C-alpha cells in the first residue's frame, strides 16, 4: 500500500515567523518566506545577517525560539527525522571525515541515509563524475584541496534522494574558476533531478541567475523577488565620475549633495537617471576626466536597501577551521 502523501503543498520550504535570539543578539526577527518546489532560491546577506542560523533551524541543529518551519510540508520541530531524510546539506564549515577516503565518505553517507546498496554504488559513481572527482575516489580526504573538499561535500549531499538541497556559502574562499564550476554543477543538477535548491551567499554576482532572491540583513527579510523585479523596484543607476581638479570636485559635491552615495579618493558616485545625466553634462561636462554609467544591479539594490555595500569578509569560520586542522591535530587525532 502506498504511503499517504504529506499535506499537499506547492512549497518545498515554508517559514512562518521564525525568531531566534542568542543572548542579546536577535539573529532572526520573525522571518517568513516560502521556497517553491524546484526553485533555485538565493539567500543574500552580509556577515552576521542570520543566514547560517536560518539554515541550522531548517536542518534541526538549532531550535527556533518561536515560529514554524516546514520541509515538504513536514514540521521540522515535530518530525525531525522525516524532515532530515529529505534534506541534502552543505554546511558553511567543512564536515568531512578526512581520515577516510573520498569514496568511504560517500559510502558512509549512503549507509547513514539508508540508501540501498545497489543505488548507493550507482549514485556514488554518478556524483563523483558530476563534481569531477572520479580520479580521486580512493584518495584520503585530507589530500584534497579545499575546493575539491567543497565539491565532495556537494556530491555527498546528493547521494540520497534529497529533495531539497541547502548550501551555506558553497563558494566562499574558492577561486573564481572553482566557483563557476560549482554553479555549473548546480545548474546541471537541476536539469537532471527534481530538486529545490536554497543557497546562501554574499557574492552578489552569483545570484543573478537564481529564480528568486531573498535579501536579509540583521535577521530581517528586506526584499524577496526575482532578480529583475528587485532591480526594477529598488535598483538605481549610478554614475561614477572623476572631476578634473579639486575645485571641480568641490563644486560637484556641493551641487549634488543629495545624490552623492560614495566618494573614493577623487572618484564620486552619484545616483543617476536620464534627466540627471543630460543636466549634469550640460553643467559639468567640461570639468570631468571620466564618467561611467552603471545600470541597476543587485549591488545597487543591496546598497539602497541596507545603506551598505556587501564586502568580502576576512578569514571566515571555514578557513579558520581549515587552518586549525593544518596547524595541529593531524597526527594527534
Amino acid at each position, binding site marked *: *500500500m*502506498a*504511503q*499517504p502523501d504529506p499535506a499537499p503543498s506547492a512549497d518545498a520550504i515554508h517559514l512562518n515567523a521564525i525568531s531566534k535570539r542568542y543572548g542579546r543578539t536577535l539573529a532572526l526577527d520573525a522571518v517568513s518566506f516560502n521556497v517553491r518546489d524546484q526553485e533555485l532560491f538565493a539567500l543574500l546577506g552580509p556577515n552576521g545577517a542570520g543566514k547560517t542560523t536560518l539554515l541550522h533551524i531548517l*536542518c*534541526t*541543529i538549532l531550535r527556533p525560539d518561536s515560529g514554524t518551519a516546514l520541509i515538504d510540508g513536514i514540521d521540522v520541530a515535530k518530525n525531525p*527525522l*522525516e524532515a*532530515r*531524510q529529505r*534534506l541534502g*546539506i552543505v*554546511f558553511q*564549515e*567543512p*564536515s*568531512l*571525515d*578526512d*581520515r*577516510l577516503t573520498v569514496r*568511504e565518505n560517500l*559510502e*558512509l*553517507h*549512503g*549507509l*547513514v*541515509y*539508508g540508501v540501498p546498496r545497489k543505488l548507493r554504488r550507482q549514485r556514488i559513481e554518478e556524483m563523483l563524475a558530476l563534481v569531477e572527482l572520479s580520479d580521486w575516489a580512493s584518495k584520503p580526504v585530507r589530500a584534497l584541496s579545499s575546493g575539491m573538499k567543497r565539491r565532495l561535500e556537494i556530491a*555527498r549531499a546528493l547521494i540520497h534522494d534529497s529533495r531539497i538541497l541547502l548550501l551555506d556559502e558553497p563558494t566562499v574562499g574558492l577561486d573564481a574558476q572553482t566557483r563557476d564550476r560549482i554553479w555549473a554543477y548546480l545548474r546541471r543538477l537541476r536539469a537532471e533531478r527534481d530538486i529545490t535548491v536554497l543557497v546562501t551567499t554574499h557574492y552578489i554576482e552569483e545570484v543573478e541567475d537564481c529564480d528568486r532572491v531573498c535579501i536579509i540583513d540583521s535577521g530581517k527579510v528586506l526584499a524577496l523577488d526575482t532578480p529583475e523585479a528587485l532591480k526594477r523596484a529598488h535598483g538605481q543607476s549610478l554614475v561614477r565620475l572623476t572631476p578634473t581638479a579639486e575645485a571641480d570636485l568641490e563644486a560637484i559635491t556641493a551641487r549634488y549633495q543629495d545624490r552623492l552615495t560614495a566618494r573614493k579618493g577623487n572618484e564620486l558616485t552619484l545616483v543617476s537617471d536620464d534627466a540627471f545625466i543630460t543636466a549634469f553634462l550640460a553643467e559639468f561636462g567640461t570639468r570631468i576626466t571620466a564618467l561611467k554609467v552603471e545600470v541597476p544591479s543587485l549591488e545597487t539594490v543591496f546598497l539602497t536597501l541596507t545603506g551598505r555595500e556587501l564586502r568580502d569578509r576576512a578569514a571566515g569560520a571555514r578557513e579558520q*577551521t581549515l587552518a*586549525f*586542522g593544518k596547524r595541529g*591535530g593531524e*597526527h*594527534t*587525532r
Partner: protein
Amino acid sequence: MNGGAMHWRRRLMVQLGGLYGLWLREVMRAFRDTGQLIGGVSRPILWVLILGIGLNPYFRGEVYGAVTFVVPFTYLQFIFPAVIALNIMFTSVQSAVSVIWDREFGFLREVLVSPLSRTTVLLAKVLGGTTVALLHGCLVLVLARFADIPITWADLPKALGLMALLAFALTSLGVVIANRIRSFQGFGIFSNAVILPLYFTSSSIFPLDPALSRAQTRVVYPDWLVTLVEWNPLTYAVDALRGALIHYNQFDPLLGIGIIVTACVVLFSVALIDFYRT
C-alpha cells in the same frame, strides 16, 4: 495498517544501517591510527613481559623469611587480567576522545542532520570504541602462555563477555568526560587524571591479602589505601576477570558482573542525556 508497519520497519532499517556505517567508521579510523595500534601492542608487552616477569620472583609468600600469606598464583598470573583491563581502558578512552574531534572538525554536524536518532549515533560511537578496545584486550590475551595461563574453551567466552562489558562501560565513561571538556587538552589529561589513578587503585598490580579478614587487611595496609581500593569499581571488574582467567576471586564474582553492568547502563544513560541536551 500494513503501510504503517512497513513504515516502521523501514525506519528501523535506516537506524540499523546507520548504526553499522558509523560503527564501521570508528573501527576503520582506529585501524588507521598507528599511534593507537603501537600503544595497544607495546603496553601489554611492557607490563606482562618486562614488569611481570621482572617482579615475578619477588612475589612470594615470604617477607624476610616470615610467611605472611600464600597465594595460589604467580605475580605474572595475578597482574595478567589487570593488564587486559588496562589495555581496554586506554583504548576505550582514546576512542571516546574522538567525540571531541568530531565536534571540532564538523563531522558531528553531518551526523546530526542525518535521519539517525541521537541514540543511534551515540550507540554506534560507543560500540565502535568497545569493538576496538575488545580487540586490544585480545592482544593481551595472546600473551597468555607467557604468563602461564592456560585458557580453556570454557573460560574464553566468559572472559570475552566481561571484557566487552568493561570496554562498553569505559568507552561510555570516556564519552561522558569528553563531553564535559570544551577545549581539547590532549589525551594526556585523560591518561593522567582518569586511567592511571583508576588502574593503580584497583588492586590490579598488588593484591590485598586474600587470606586476611577485612579488619586484618586494614591493619596490614594503610586505611586510606584499602578504602580507595574498595571504592574503586574497577577493582570488582578486574576481580571478575581474574575469576574467569585464573579462577581466583577476592569478591563474589556476581558482584563484579553486577557492577560492570550497572556502570554500562548508568554511564551510557548519562552520555545519552548529555548528547540530547547539547
